[in-house]
């Protein structure tokens, strides 16, 4: 089963972001989502290091060393963008002013738990960054990730095995195999499957029941 490639996943998620939303994109595949929101659809990207209205990566010869995103990659600022300090930036997050946060994850559970920062309780020096603030603070949290690990184990599960980032926070998951809502009291509900895939196929690599709408 292949489904979407990473670009396809990012493009699929980008379709669902309406104009006017304020969106924080995590490191990795989430960052790619920005490339698939056309500039004329005004979505305001927030970066936790104090940028509101972030634009795409600059041309190689236009890199500004002062201007990086949360992944420390060079970015640009759109007209209308602004800068603030870290406490103000996380006030935006913690105060519920971010419409959408998109994160990657190791696992998402059927109750919306997300694990994306530490690979075991014994990982004694994991890097949490802003993930817990974003998980707890954004108005809605969507996850974008491969449907299974490299060795084929499901990442949509009944219960997370890894240490949690935020309990009961994920509203929707985008994977290479489809799009799944997390519905309280029910679990994963299929919104969309990648072209050519059947529910049975996708269920066979998912660690929790997939419901239909």
């Amino acid at each position: 089963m292949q489904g979407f490639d990473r670009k396809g996943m990012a493009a699929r998620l980008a379709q669902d972001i309406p104009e006017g939303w304020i969106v924080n994109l995590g490191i990795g595949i989430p960052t790619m989502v920005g490339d698939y929101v056309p500039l004329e659809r005004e979505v305001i990207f927030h970066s936790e290091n104090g940028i509101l209205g972030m634009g795409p990566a600059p041309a190689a010869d236009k890199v500004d060393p002062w201007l990086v995103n949360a992944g420390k990659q060079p970015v640009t600022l759109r007209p209308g963008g602004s800068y603030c300090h870290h406490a103000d930036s996380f006030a935006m997050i913690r105060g519920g002013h971010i419409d959408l946060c998109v994160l990657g994850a190791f696992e998402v559970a059927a109750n919306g738990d997300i694990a994306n920062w530490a690979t075991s309780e014994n990982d004694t020096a994991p890097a949490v960054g802003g993930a817990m603030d974003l998980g707890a603070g954004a108005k809605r949290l969507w996850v974008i990730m491969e449907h299974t690990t490299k060795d084929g184990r499901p990442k949509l599960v009944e219960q997370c095995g890894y240490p949690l980032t935020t309990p009961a926070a994920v509203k929707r998951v985008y994977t290479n195999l489809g799009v799944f809502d997390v519905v309280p009291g029910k679990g994963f509900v299929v919104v969309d499957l990648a072209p050519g895939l059947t529910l049975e196929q996708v269920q066979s690599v998912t660690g929790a029941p997939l419901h239909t709408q």
Partner: protein
Amino acid sequence: MINKIVQSMADAMAGIKDGSTVLIGGFGAVGQPDQLIEALIEQGAKDLVCVANNAGNGRVGLAKLMELGRVRKIICSFPRSAGSVVFEELYRAGKIELEIVPQGTMAERMRAAGAGVPAFFTATSVGTILAHGKEEREFNGRRYVMEHALKGDVALVEAWEGDRWGNLTYRSSGRNFNPVMAMAADLTIAQVSHIRELGELVPENVHTPGIFVNRVIHVDRGPAWA
């Protein structure tokens, strides 16, 4: 295209409900959104809880809103000043509730609401009658009271410049409570002296980023304020 600029006061006030908590910026006349208060009087919402540093002056603006019986309760730091005649009348007649809050605590409670902090501790008011009924706690040998976030349904703010994304700048001491109120309300409405094109404001010097602002309306405050 995101466009938070509205053309009429009716549009600016749309949807404000009876029973709302309304945060009103300004320190005395400076940074006070006079025209928005007039528009709220016009709009008709009643049973309001108003949060403002002062309890109105003369018989206009917030004082008029109170005189019309539209304000159930006022939360402020300085209700009593030379001109607060309407408040005094209503308060003595038992027709308005008052919650008096130290000025810094009031600002911080709104900042907390905007920043997703439901409660915090401060030494302000410890050992005074304003600490009555508040939880107290010791940190590093000093006593503090717990204060709760103060959230608004609506904030009416005054700014110097605004653009269609809702970015604002303030002039001089007109800033005061406006930025904290803007971040603490579900619906923030700004009256601005100048509308700017998107990108005209210097990104480092935006005082209230548009994320905290829902509607912007241009108001010419006249020559004294130009």
